[in-house]
């Protein structure tokens, strides 16, 4: 028992498998699906089955988002579990391609939500399906409590109405986890999440977005029109109570480290390519020599790599805390904030360092610089993370620090 911040040996095979997937499957089709926006990367079907197999065959969680579930525990023994292994898998896959990871069947954030809060019956019923997440509305982005979509109990069914935008893989998934309010007069306490089958006639696809990056991943906008779901489709506790929303928000403590991991992965991709490009250009990066006595490009590289290191470690810390049942919402938001901004700063910095080679489409550097931006936005923007961190550090309520 001593301080150790290395990837545990038992996860190395998983990380190496994920890296092979990234190298052999993602990278070769990375540019293709960046250009062919809205066409389904069919190469992923076989891969998804493979990953399902990986998940089945081990107790350490897979390379995707479905592995995140808090285990009861706390016997004091240090645990490296599914949160950490999932983060490690995602880093490798996003080193390959963020958009393709987000398009992986059955690995959506909706799956994380289900894995985090579903009852055993719900897990049984919905396990093995691909679930997308629908929170954002035209008038409610970061402010989840302002959600206008409604859910009304009618006999044994809830009737959902409203509009949802920015639903990642919304058109491709089997299920959509929809956030809606049971009673808009009761504020955030009444917000619940519901599992809606994609083929539900009340769920209408409005359009697919055209985007800056992660173009392999589809982003759908829906209208819910008297969309009826069975009572059992409500995730978690149906009671309207003040703590209820906090429960919904707890999902984020598990999913934010995953998005941080995505940013870490794409950051590492950009740094590795840039190191290669700089080496070819005759710039040596030396870890012994003081950064400021080296080539300006080397000094800049070291600065970016240092930010990468911090983002990587903060992400591992948040996941490790989740594995050990330690409250981690502060660390999860720290990781997301640091990794999100580092992803953008570093990928853009790498394009600048590599000049036209970085900016041009012959290399993937410009693509990574476009892909990274969403990671500082979804699952809570940079500013939302800073708010959460500040409220925790300063012990403020959301009424005091808005």
């Amino acid at each position, binding site marked *: *028992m*001593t*301080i*150790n*911040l*290395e*990837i*545990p*040996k*038992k996860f190395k095979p998983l990380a190496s498998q994920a890296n092979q997937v990234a190298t052999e499957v993602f990278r070769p089709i990375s540019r293709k699906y960046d250009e062919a926006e809205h066409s389904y990367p069919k190469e992923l079907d076989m891969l998804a089955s493979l990953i399902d197999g990986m998940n089945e065959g081990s107790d350490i969680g897979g390379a995707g988002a479905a592995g995140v579930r808090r285990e009861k525990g706390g016997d004091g023994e*240090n645990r*490296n579990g599914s949160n*950490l292994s999932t983060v490690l898998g995602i880093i490798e896959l996003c080193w390959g391609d963020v958009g393709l990871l987000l398009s992986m069947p059955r690995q959506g954030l909706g799956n994380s939500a289900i894995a985090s809060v579903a009852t055993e019956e719900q897990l049984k019923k919905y396990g093995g399906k691909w679930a997308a997440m629908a929170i954002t509305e035209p008038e409610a982005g970061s402010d989840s409590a302002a959600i206008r979509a409604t859910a009304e109990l009618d006999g044994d069914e809830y009737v959902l109405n409203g509009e949802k935008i920015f639903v990642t893989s919304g058109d491709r998934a089997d299920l959509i986890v929809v956030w809606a309010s049971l009673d808009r007069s009761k504020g955030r306490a009444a917000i619940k999440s519901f599992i809606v089958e994609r083929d539900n006639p009340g769920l209408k696809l409005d359009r697919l977005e055209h985007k800056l990056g992660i173009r392999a991943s589809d982003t759908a906008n829906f209208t819910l029109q008297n969309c009826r779901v069975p009572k059992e489709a409500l995730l978690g506790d149906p009671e309207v109570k003040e703590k209820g929303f906090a429960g919904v928000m707890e999902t984020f403590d598990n999913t934010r480290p995953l998005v941080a991991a995505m940013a870490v992965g794409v950051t590492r991709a950009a740094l590795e390519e840039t190191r290669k490009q700089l080496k070819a250009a005759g710039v040596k990066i030396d*870890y*012994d*020599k*003081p*950064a*400021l*006595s080296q080539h300006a490009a080397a000094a800049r590289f*070291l*600065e970016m*790599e*240092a*930010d990468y*290191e*911090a*983002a990587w*470690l*903060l992400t*591992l*810390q948040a996941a*490790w805390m989740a594995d050990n049942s330690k409250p981690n919402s502060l*660390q999860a938001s*720290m990781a997301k*904030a*640091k990794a999100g901004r580092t992803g953008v700063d570093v990928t853009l910095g790498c394009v600048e360092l590599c000049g036209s080679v970085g900016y041009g489409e012959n290399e993937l550097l410009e693509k990574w610089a476009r892909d990274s931006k969403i990671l500082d936005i979804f699952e809570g923007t940079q*500013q939302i*993370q*800073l*708010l959460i*961190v*500040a*409220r925790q*550090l*300063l*012990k*403020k309520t959301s009424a*005091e*620090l*808005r």
Partner: protein
Amino acid sequence: MSTTTENKGVAERGMGYGLRALNRLAGSDLLDRIRIRKQVENALFQGTKNGFRTATAAGRTFKAAQSLGKPARQKKGRSKGLFDLTPDDEQQMFQEGGRAFAEEKIRPAALKADEDRKTPKEILDQATELGVNMLGVPEELGGVMTEQSAVTSVLIGEALAHGDMGIAYAALAPGAAATAIGLWGSAEQEATYLPAFTGEDVPAAALAILEPRPLFDPFELETKAKRKGEEWVLTGAKSLVARATECELFVIAADAEGIGPALFVVESGAKGLSVEDEPAMGLRPAATGRLLIDKVKLPASALLGEGEASAKDYAACVNRSRIAWCGLATGTAQAVLDYVIPYVNDRQAFGEPISNRQGVAFAVSDIGIEQNGMRLATYRAASRADRGESFAREAALAKRLCSQKGMKIGSDGVQLLGGHGFVKEHPVERWYRDLRAAGVMEGALLV
């Protein structure tokens, strides 16, 4: 040790006498009448520099106790191979001891120590009691740690620097010389010098690498060691040495003829060794001085290590120093965070606490985020060093973070207090000055 104080007394009295005479000269209009004030002032500047120059301390005689025949080394650290951020029991003990000491003794003494440019002896003695000087001393030579202790050293440095970085530097500097000898010294060198670090009367000592010039690179030293027959002759200068006038032992980095950068063990009082006062922006309780090395003759045995010194060992030394400074920067950055939180929550403006404003609150978030990143990067580098894994990359990245983010934290600490941060009533201005050191220092501390 008593001779040390006497020496310094004489030096101080000498200065005092000199100043009185100078004051009379400055007050007279003779200078202006004969139009030589500028020249005299100039000469005075140079004269003062030399006036402050003193011989190094007349130290104890280091004598080899029974040598072990081959050098004793602490074992490499082991790990169960799992990611873990929990310190072990021994580390927790040191950490808690360090924290209590910092809170009860160091912080209350910090303001005066900064003004006096002196760390009270009582505090240095207590640090010795805590065991900070012997962390790198192998068990066979009276040390307490069986395994390598870079992480433990970082935890202690972090804890002490939460009290005050300058005092932490003063307290930890002797241990750096001992750790260097414990890590790389020959059996003879270990037997000669290490026992002194395990007792109560630990000598002031220093690991001197940094040189006084811009863009200093520890791998391109201007301090040279020339071979002369069996002897080495050292010439050069070393900067910001903690408690330089008190030091009885120096481990000095020099570019050794035919070898490259290497470390030499030099006892104080060696002919040609002198100390000049070198006060700086921060780290003032460490009474920093410049070590002047003027053709100091050393026996062949002064070269640290058995036979050929290795470039790898020297690089490890530089990188371990960087990790140590990161530990201090992390502790001081934590002090900033802990201080600004209650301040911005209490301070009212426009009818509410200033922390209700995002402009203020987000600055606090950033301090928390970057400080956490600095700490993790530092722990990683240290734990890799303990296990005998490569750590140059991790040390370099931790240093970049602690230098850059650490300084930003120091600056934001003052900024968040506004004008109140700029005055000595609050410690943030001191931390601002101290945190700049993390990017500047090389050597001096060791994990």
